[in-house]
């Protein structure tokens, strides 16, 4: 049964293991896609629809009709009379098990029918206000701006500082070089979860608590980035640098004008990773940031979910907005990301 675990392929012949492999791949794709698709579909439903059960597979909304003599638009229902005939009616009000309805073509005549005879008419409807309302009601735009700010500034600083360190480590011989490289690599072994209390004290000591710079500065130096760039810079021939030195270029100019442009592929990989890391960061911003106007998207989103009255239609819309940038980045740069992960073993 588990013979599909074997690896070899028979060219030109399909056997049971090929079918099992395809089955696994397609089933797995569904397992990955369905919860995400469900969140996207649900994010376009009205509040009433999202709380109704069993859930509908497509976003719908109650069909309404404006009738003369009635202030508000009325919802449209189908009434099945006891004799089996069907009739379209508009619901005026409902009291217990009986409902007052009217025939839209004769708006002055209302009559009472049992609720059991009524079935609501719903039509396909995408509730885009789920996306626009949170922008007005909550500080959602603020969260978005904070996250973009943190992501962009931290990524630029990461690229700059990590490449400078990588340049020193790969293109110079100086006392303490290997020790420093080992120290930088050793920070890979120290996860945030182990040092979060004293790291927060340092932030408080630097007067950066509840400040976006407190989130940014502590994440700028990454051992992964230094390592990745150093390995890449080692492949750049030293002759190039020597030639520039002969032409009296300053050391910084060599880094800035020669090494950095040549590192573009490695810088691109690090930039992609950095954007995704910073966009998704959770525990550290959760510790550092305390007032809502400084929240990042992730913190804002998780704090909304913890509130007493959970407004899922808004939460899901904001979840979709939050996963969108990462998805777009992945769609376009999928190859670089998977290859970067496979070759460096980081994520």
């Amino acid at each position, binding site marked *: 049964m588990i013979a599909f675990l074997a690896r*070899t392929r028979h060219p030109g012949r399909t056997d049971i293991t090929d079918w099992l492999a395809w089955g696994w791949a397609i089933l797995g794709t569904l397992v990955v896609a369905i919860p995400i698709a*469900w969140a996207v579909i649900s994010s376009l439903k009205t509040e009433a629809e999202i709380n109704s059960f069993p859930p509908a597979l497509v976003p719908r909304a109650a069909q309404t009709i404006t009738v003369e003599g009635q202030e508000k638009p009325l919802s449209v229902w189908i009434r099945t009379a006891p004799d089996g005939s069907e009739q379209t009616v508009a619901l005026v009000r409902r009291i217990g098990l009986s409902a007052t309805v009217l025939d839209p073509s004769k708006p002055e005549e209302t009559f009472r029918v049992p609720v059991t005879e009524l079935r609501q008419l719903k039509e396909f409807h995408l509730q885009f206000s789920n996306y626009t309302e949170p922008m007005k009601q909550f500080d959602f735009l603020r969260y978005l701006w904070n996250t973009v700010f943190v992501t962009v500034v931290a990524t630029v600083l990461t690229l700059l500082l990590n490449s*400078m*360190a990588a340049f020193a480590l790969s293109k110079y011989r100086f006392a303490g070089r290997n020790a420093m490289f080992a120290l930088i690599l050793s*920070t890979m072994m120290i996860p945030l979860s182990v*040092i979060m*209390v*004293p790291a927060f004290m340092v932030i408080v000591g630097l007067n950066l608590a509840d400040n976006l710079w407190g989130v940014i500065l502590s994440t700028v130096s990454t051992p992964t980035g230094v390592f990745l760039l150093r390995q890449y810079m080692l492949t750049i021939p030293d002759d190039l640098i020597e030639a520039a030195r002969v032409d009296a270029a300053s050391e910084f100019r060599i880094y800035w004008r020669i090494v950095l442009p040549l590192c573009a592929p490695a810088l691109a990989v690090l930039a992609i990773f950095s954007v995704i890391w910073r966009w998704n960061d959770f525990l550290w911003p959760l510790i550092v940031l305390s007032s809502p106007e400084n929240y990042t998207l992730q913190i804002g989103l998780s704090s909304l979910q913890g509130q007493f009255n959970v407004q899922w239609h808004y939460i899901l819309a904001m979840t979709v907005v939050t996963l969108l940038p990462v998805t777009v980045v992945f769609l376009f740069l999928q190859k670089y990301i998977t290859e970067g992960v496979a070759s460096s073993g980081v994520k």
Partner: protein
Amino acid sequence: MTAPASVAPPVVARGERLGEGLDAVMRVAEVPMAALQRLLGAARMPYVFILPNMVLFTIFVFVPVGLAIAYAFTGGTNLLIWERPYVGLENFKALLDCGSYLEPSTCRYNLFWTAVHNTWWYTLLNTLGTLFFALVTALVINRLTRGRGFFRAVFFYPVLLSPVVVGLIWQWFLAREGLLNGFLTDWFDTRIIFLLEVGWSRLWVVYVSIWFHMGFFMLIILAGLQAIPRDIYEAAQIDGTSQWRQFWCLTLPLLMPNLLVVTVLLLIRSVQVFDEAWVLTNGGGPGTANTFIVQFIYQTAFSPDLRLYGLASAASVLMGIALLALTLSQLWLAKKAQV
């Protein structure tokens, strides 16, 4: 400053493409750095290059590591280390004060031991589960003749999502009014409030973690699979070896070093479980069924009514020791795998 065009023509061309604006910015940065070089001498420039990184690492990693140990030996609720009284091993004694380590309710800090127990079970199930699914998926993808890149991308995609997004998506999927309960009602006429039942919620926390991180480990295993030379299999096929035997006698042994590294990496990650479980279970619930060690540290230190920084640091130090042991064994295994 004139650009030495003779140095590297392609580089200069690339620089030109970046545009005039950037060029001006670059020139502005060069002037003070060149002045600095005249002041210090070219030999000291590498220190200038590495300095910002080392400063940040020192402030945000090395100093906190030292402080974490110092905190663990102090008491009180003051955050600043110099205002905290020294209490010796008191925090460790309090954490380790237990009637029986197998029964959290007999411990002085039963929440810590509940968290340890939860983390232990989570680590075991998550490691085995992820390893199984990542291995099978890697084998399947490696075997596919078409659509390999597509499926690799699909399985990897969840890795890039944020823990909050993953927690919320699954919370909605498993909700009272969620899709899964919709199907359950249709087929079995029953509803389960998954995240409010101890057993179910624990199972789903592990499942969601596997769903979330499996693609990362799949990629690493896939890289290992692709490094196995093809001709070994051709030879086995000529000998008439069955596929099942090929897997057990060729693929698995050749992949073993890779799998060992993946296993230890999984253990290291699992011990630190926090983000997605915290969002998915609304803070470790129901009750304390999904409270893990990192959550215990976070709450003990940062809950407004606790602020027990010393106790939290003591727990951090204990977890750090466990992680260090795992990391060292990973390095050892990785070194062995290369030989």
